[in-house]
């Protein structure tokens, strides 16, 4: 019976001699604050992992983003309707001149949307926070924003609010609003998907996105 | 690396079993280099093997028996100079662990405190300045595992070599890699042991150095055996012997 397995395992562990618990270690040795600010350090770290990083002005960011995405060969950009930044995207796409990528909304559940998800060539999400060291974006999918947006389409566009960039991951977890209960999924992303399993030769986009386009909102 | 404590008047030498069996010149050279500095050396004849071969092979009782012998033979207060980081390490770090009896453990710790590896003793204990009288020579240095990781004495050996004006120390590509001796490992896994020796010697040959200097006779025995089996034009030598040779212009 499963309960018995649990009890037997725990009983064996409890029978073992106890040892003094190691003292709680001091706070993480903090890396010195990067010169030029966390944003510059984040940019450098992401670029080193082959993400493409650009800055966007906060004023009119969505229109500017649309312009920057033209001419990249993207036919559509998937987005999640229920997010606070969705209206700005919709407005920018309704306003500006026609042309790809087309803005396309995620609809329903993944069971309903799966085919279109796997056929899409790009998607946009926001980062909840970022940490310059070691160079990660913290994505917080949830009811408003599906997790697979940042995984399935080969191009992933991420918006990073400048004020949400922390120096270290420790700081981001402590101060970024990640107190329990945690959402079903949190993902740290540091660059496009990659592998070196064949002769240690680096290649991108095996399963996750092959391009990560990061836009830091200043 | 200046040592604040004064030079001892006298030291004990723990020769090690490999030196007694195969490389007595190493002990003679060590003694000479120490005596030159005005320090008397005594050789407690009751010494045997430090016990490391048994200890590493999992035969703790035999190791403990050997340790007891050395504790008795090396009784006293004098520094104990050991021309081998692995034997020095055995006595310094592992002897105390062999004993559960508090009195024996204390004795082991007192001995541990007195033990010093040969190269470290020359530099920190004696502050030697050696005058290199030999011809220009290119050598390479092999960091034996215990010297490097357990005893941390490689910097002393390197300082001594760097102090020889006409000796050029060429770095091995894989200086810190194990030579493959490992005591019983050489017997239980001879093919691997031989492969590791081969790689170390290839590394040596690639530097163009004719000689490999090391501080541990286990490594030297192993590499010398491989050299002779294959008739290679290479030579290995213990640091003590090499330093003595240079001082004599040889």
């Amino acid at each position, binding site marked *: 019976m499963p309960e018995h397995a649990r009890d037997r395992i725990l009983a064996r562990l409890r029978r073992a001699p106890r040892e003094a618990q190691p003292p709680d270690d001091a706070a993480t040795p903090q890396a010195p604050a990067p010169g030029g600010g966390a944003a510059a350090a984040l940019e450098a770290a992401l670029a080193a992992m082959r993400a493409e990083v650009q800055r966007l002005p906060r004023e009119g960011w969505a229109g500017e983003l649309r312009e920057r995405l033209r001419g990249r060969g993207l036919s559509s950009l998937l987005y999640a309707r229920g997010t606070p930044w969705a209206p700005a995207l919709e407005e920018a796409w309704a306003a500006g001149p026609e042309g790809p990528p087309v803005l396309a909304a995620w609809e329903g559940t993944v069971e309903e949307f799966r085919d279109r998800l796997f056929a899409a060539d790009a998607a946009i999400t926001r980062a909840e926070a970022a940490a310059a060291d070691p160079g990660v974006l913290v994505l917080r999918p949830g009811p408003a924003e599906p997790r697979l947006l940042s995984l399935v389409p080969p191009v992933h566009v991420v918006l990073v609010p400048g004020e949400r960039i922390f120096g270290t991951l420790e700081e981001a977890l402590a101060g970024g609003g990640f107190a329990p209960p*945690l959402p079903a999924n949190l993902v740290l992303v540091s660059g496009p998907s990659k592998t070196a399993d064949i002769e240690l030769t680096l290649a991108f986009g*095996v399963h996750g996105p092959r391009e990560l386009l990061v836009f830091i909102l200043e | 690396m200046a040592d604040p404590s004064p030079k001892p008047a006298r030291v004990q030498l723990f020769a090690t079993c490999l030196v007694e069996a195969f*490389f007595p010149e190493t002990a003679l050279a060590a003694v000479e280099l120490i005596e030159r500095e005005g320090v008397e050396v005594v050789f407690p004849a009751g010494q045997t093997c430090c016990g490391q071969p*048994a200890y590493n092979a*999992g035969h703790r009782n035999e190791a403990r*028996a050997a340790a*007891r012998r050395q504790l008795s033979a090396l009784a006293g207060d004098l520094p104990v100079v050991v021309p081998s980081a692995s034997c020095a390490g055995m006595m310094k770090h592992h002897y105390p662990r062999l004993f559960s009896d508090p009195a024996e453990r204390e004795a082991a710790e007192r001995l541990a405190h007195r033990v010093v590896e040969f190269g470290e003793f020359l530099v920190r204990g004696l502050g030697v300045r050696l005058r290199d009288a030999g011809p220009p020579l290119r050598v390479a240095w092999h960091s034996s595992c215990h010297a490097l990781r357990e005893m941390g004495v490689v910097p002393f050996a390197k300082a001594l070599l760097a102090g020889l004006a006409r000796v050029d120390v060429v770095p091995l590509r894989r200086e810190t890699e194990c030579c493959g001796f490992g005591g019983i490992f050489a017997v239980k896994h001879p*093919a691997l042991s*031989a492969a590791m020796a081969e790689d170390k010697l290839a590394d040596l040959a690639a530097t163009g150095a004719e000689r490999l200097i090391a501080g541990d006779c286990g490594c030297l025995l192993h590499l010398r055996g491989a050299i002779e089996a294959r008739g290679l034009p290479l030579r290995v030598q213990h640091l003590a012997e090499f330093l003595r040779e240079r001082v004599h212009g040889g």
Partner: protein
Amino acid sequence: MGDSGFEARIEQALADAGLRRNFASAMGSFAARRLAVFPDAAALERLREQGAAARRRALARLPELLEELERALVGNGIHVHWAETAAVGNRIVLEILEAHGVRRVVKGKSMVSEEMHLNAFLARHGIDAVETDLGEFIIQLAGETPSHIIVPAVHKNRAQIARLFHEKIPGTPYTEEVAELNAVARRTLRRMFREAGAGLSGVNFAVAATGTLCLVENEGNGRMCTGVPPLHIAVMGIEKVIERLEDLPPLLRLLTGSATGQRVTTYVNLISGPRRAGDPDGPREVHVVLLDNGRSAVYADPELRATLQCIRCGCCLNHCPVYTRIGGHAYGTTYPGPIGKVLTPQLAGLERAGGLPFASTLCGACEEVCPVKIPLTRLLRRLREETVQAGAAGGAGAGAIERLAWRGYGLSAQHPRLYRLLFACGRWLGGLMPPVAALERWGRAHAEPRFARLSLRRLFRKRGIPDA
């Protein structure tokens, strides 16, 4: 005792020039990258201390922490199962899959599932478990086991992989272009992600305080396996639990830096539950199988317990002069390298694996780099003692001749006259090598050591060195 094929496999591996070259190059590369990602030795040392402390703290409270983990996982809606043995663990996974009518599973990399031989078990029951990590995918096609904890196909070159894909994946032309080989894998597996009824994964760390499963990866296949199918089953050894979220950043830095010399993996996936109300995607059910399989026995010994600190980074493998020469397959175990030599005898028993700890020179290179400071040489030596004692008790262990030899050693070490007499014999006989097979093999690669012509004691007396 133990694995008689080990020495033969070692010699075979040593004779395989291509294998040796592959491994030497790969391991050298990892070692160099590790130094590059940890340039400050003092900072690295502090980080290792932190990592070691986090692991030891968790282990010190293991039973309580596991209960805490279970509570938190269950509170998050994750099903928790306990398995004492691999066989039970396999059965639990099978039952969950059968209850959901799953015929095909997509799998992320999981060493513990290798330990359980889970894929073979599922196959016997008609369930196809497809490896999706590219390295695991490759060796699965080849019908092999991983040769390294982190890069399982490191022993294969592109020509071998090209032939494998061409022969085993329908409609694949022969190509050695890495980009094209990757594209083939992507296409093939993408379909599987979409169609599989369940995803299987391991767990890098399980956070007790928040009920979170932490998985790291570079490819994205792990997120696919744990995010696309409607069912996710995670298997983990009971030692993988850590106390709190704050323990993650230093352990993650240590893990990725030590494993492949990266600052961070592409993805760190933190799973704290199945799809919540309102979530548009994510698995509807998440299960965790907590596997003992001998770990509680390891835990019972306060010295050997340190084995469980391991975070499976593979760094010890990368720096081991033995592993880098023979690769993982020669060991014939799930876990190769230094940690394998320590873990396997404890999980599989001394009878089968007691010889493994002797396949080491105790050089300490592994211990020097272990990110969580496992005292590997001490554990290797301890396990050698265990094997010797088992032999003394009549079980697996040193043979009679060996025991006699060590008894003789002990006597000579205790009696200086006997000790010197033996050396004298060596001198007179021109050698002291007993005609023992093992020594003969050693002798093939070594000229016989020459005993010194004169006794040291006599030499010293001539020079006037006092006897003390």
